[in-house]
């Protein structure tokens, strides 16, 4: 099987779907559009399955070379795909969850305008995401990396008529550019240092570099890569785009902004584990950023009322956990959490989408409540994801989160405790969302109705995966990378972590089920602190004041009114005006008066004669 060249089929199928739906979708019936979208993704899912089963246990990575893309001196960049154990996990997550979300979206988007446009973008996203995870060199990863950014931008701004959607799309794109800039710089540094961008060669060379002499350059590369990861995976300080990205349709939030695209940063850090392992400072930075993000986002999540915003901050926070794992060198645990998080966060978002769908677009949790009897299937599947993210034992989220926190404990004690508290807060805010949405009495006006089978079906599958997926994928994931040193018994630590989760749920139950109203008085008692967290620490305002406004003001006064108006416009208009003025003067010469013409001719002839005389005058 190693001889065959068939990996390219995996990303190409969704691209074909995107092309058909993008160019012809407008004229096709909805049935055909959804069939094309789903079947192409199903095709690549099945092809992934077939390829993986044929490749066996992947002791050595399977690579395929298609053609040379760039040849410049000694630098050769090919279009190469590769499957190794890390790619295997990512392929399964992306195509599997992607397929389910495509099916869900058929039901969710049924009433929306731009049905075919939506699926064209969604398939396009699948193409770029699969390119990203299959790529065998940094530049090809970057192609996928930028491509998913583009698809994300298009889908966030999907509701063309809403200004906030367009703004959110632009914000996501621009914030991501900052990260991408870091990624590009990292690539330049890699080319300078190693002379190639191919993963295998770079990592071989990096593994051979003596750490003492090259720690600086490796740290720089690792940190720059991490800047890219921060942009894509919404870490501090670049996380601000992700909560706004919820302006897109909910399946998009689930697929791109929870399950797959935002984990690309974790993927790239895990992929480059050889480099990060040899750059301890960079690893520390990864840990601290992950921890800080996890804490900040979790606290914001506690105060939000928009159900999608809660889950968005939860995603940011969980991504922070994944980076904490990477920072503690437990890359496989990080990827493990990527997998389990993909399942339960997809359910949370899809469930939220189902709730929103049931309430005809209502997203404010204060106007929900008591929905558990009205949309029972959504409720039950959401419960599975809720227990999974809260870290209740027996659910997949607990398995991966325990692993991460234990790995963090091996790195540093205090980070472990902060992580445990954050895990408790996580359980608290998700429980809060659940209680506000499904318990108590209904506070809204719309008439809730259960979602169609195309939505509940994927919910059920993903819900069951959030229970058992952790156990299914555990062994598969841990084939990836450096085995975590299993130093003895962690049952006491696990007990603490589980306890924190349960405490979070209990506190939420106490505040939002038993003593409703108490939470309000606590919020009032905390006053300014609560306001600060409710306003998301005013990070957006801070960025506005620090970066956006100076740039806008500078653009307006210097670039627009200064450079553009005065210099460029001045130059262009000045040339025109000068020629016009000269023309006005010269026009007087053309008076139609023949003697004056003749005078000019005579004077001219005289001038020419005198000129010749003067030029050759010296000789005579």
């Amino acid at each position, binding site marked *: 099987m190693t001889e065959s060249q068939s990996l390219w089929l995996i990303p190409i199928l969704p691209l074909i779907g995107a092309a058909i739906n993008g160019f012809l979708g407008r004229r096709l019936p909805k049935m055909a559009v959804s069939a094309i979208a789903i079947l192409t993704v199903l095709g690549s899912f099945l092809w992934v399955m077939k390829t993986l089963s044929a490749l066996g246990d992947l002791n050595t990575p399977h690579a395929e070379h298609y053609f040379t893309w760039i040849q410049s001196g000694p630098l050769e960049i090919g279009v190469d795909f590769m499957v190794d154990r890390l790619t295997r996990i990512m392929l399964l997550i992306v195509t599997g969850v992607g397929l389910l979300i495509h099916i869900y979206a058929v039901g969710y988007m049924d009433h929306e305008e731009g049905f075919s446009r939506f699926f064209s973008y969604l398939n396009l996203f699948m193409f770029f995401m699969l390119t990203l995870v299959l790529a065998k060199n940094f530049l090809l990863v970057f192609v996928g990396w930028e491509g998913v950014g583009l698809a994300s931008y298009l889908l966030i701004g999907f509701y063309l008529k809403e200004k906030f959607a367009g703004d959110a799309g632009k914000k996501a794109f621009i914030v991501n550019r900052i990260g991408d800039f870091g990624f590009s710089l990292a690539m330049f540094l890699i080319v300078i240092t190693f002379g190639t961008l191919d993963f295998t060669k770079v990592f071989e060379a990096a593994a051979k570099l003596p750490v003492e002499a090259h720690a600086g350059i490796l740290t720089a590369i690792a940190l720059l890569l991490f800047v890219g990861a921060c942009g894509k995976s919404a870490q501090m300080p670049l996380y601000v785009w992700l909560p706004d990205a919820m302006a897109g349709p909910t399946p998009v939030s689930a697929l791109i902004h929870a399950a797959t695209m935002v984990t690309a940063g974790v993927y790239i850090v895990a992929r480059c584990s050889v480099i990060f392992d040899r750059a301890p400072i960079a690893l520390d930075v990864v840990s601290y950023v992950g921890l800080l993000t996890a804490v900040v986002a979790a606290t914001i999540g506690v105060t939000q009322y928009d159900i999608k915003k809660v889950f968005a901050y939860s995603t940011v926070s969980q991504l922070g956990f994944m980076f904490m794992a990477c920072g503690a060198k437990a890359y496989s645990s990080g990827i493990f959490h990527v997998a389990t998080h993909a399942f339960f966060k997809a359910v949370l978002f899809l469930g939220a989408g189902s709730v929103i769908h049931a309430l005809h677009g209502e997203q404010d949790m204060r106007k929900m409540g008591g929905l558990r009897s009205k949309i029972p299937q959504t409720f039950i599947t959401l419960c599975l994801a809720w227990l999974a993210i809260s870290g209740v034992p027996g659910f997949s989220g607990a398995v991966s989160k325990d692993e991460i926190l234990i790995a963090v404990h091996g790195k540093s004690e205090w980070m472990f405790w902060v992580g445990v508290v954050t895990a408790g807060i996580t359980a608290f805010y998700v429980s809060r969302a659940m209680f506000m949405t499904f318990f108590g009495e209904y506070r809204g006006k719309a008439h809730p109705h259960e979602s169609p089978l195309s939505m509940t079906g994927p919910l059920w599958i993903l819900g069951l995966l959030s229970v058992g997926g952790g156990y299914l994928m555990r062994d598969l994931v841990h084939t990836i990378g450096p085995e975590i040193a299993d130093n003895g018994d962690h049952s006491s630590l696990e007990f603490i972590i589980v306890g924190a989760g349960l405490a979070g749920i209990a506190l939420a139950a106490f505040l939002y089920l038993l003593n409703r109203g108490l939470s309000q008085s606590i919020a009032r008692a905390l006053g300014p602190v609560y306001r600060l967290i409710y306003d998301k620490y005013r990070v957006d305002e801070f960025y506005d004041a620090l970066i956006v406004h100076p740039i806008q003001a500078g653009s307006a006064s210097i670039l627009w009114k200064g450079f553009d108006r005065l210099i460029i416009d001045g130059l262009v208009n000045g040339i025109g005006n000068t020629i016009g003025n000269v023309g006005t003067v010269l026009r007087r010469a053309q008076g*139609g008066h023949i003697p004056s013409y003749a005078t000019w001719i005579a004077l001219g002839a005289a001038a020419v004669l005198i000129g010749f005389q003067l030029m050759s005058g010296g000789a005579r």
Partner: protein
Amino acid sequence: MMLPNAVPVSWYLVLSAILFSLGVAGFLMRRNIITVFMCIELMLNAVNLSFVAFSYELKKIDGQLFTFFVMVVAAAEAAVGLAIILTVFRHRMSLEIDDVSSLKN
């Protein structure tokens, strides 16, 4: 071949220059189209004079050849020019050169 006491070439040239200047002055100052036209002929003939003078001086036939060309052109010009003047006069009932200044701006 050179005759004694012959008139030197410079005299011819001076005469030619005087005739040419008279032609230019008349062309610029007179207002009657016919007069202007005659001034042009005067200038052409001033040039002819210098051609012939040089031809004689340098013992070359080229100058006299050119003179015939100039005469032919002058004749053609007179024919066309007089026809134009006639037409202009019929249209405008005037031979003032300032009245035919419509070719401007």
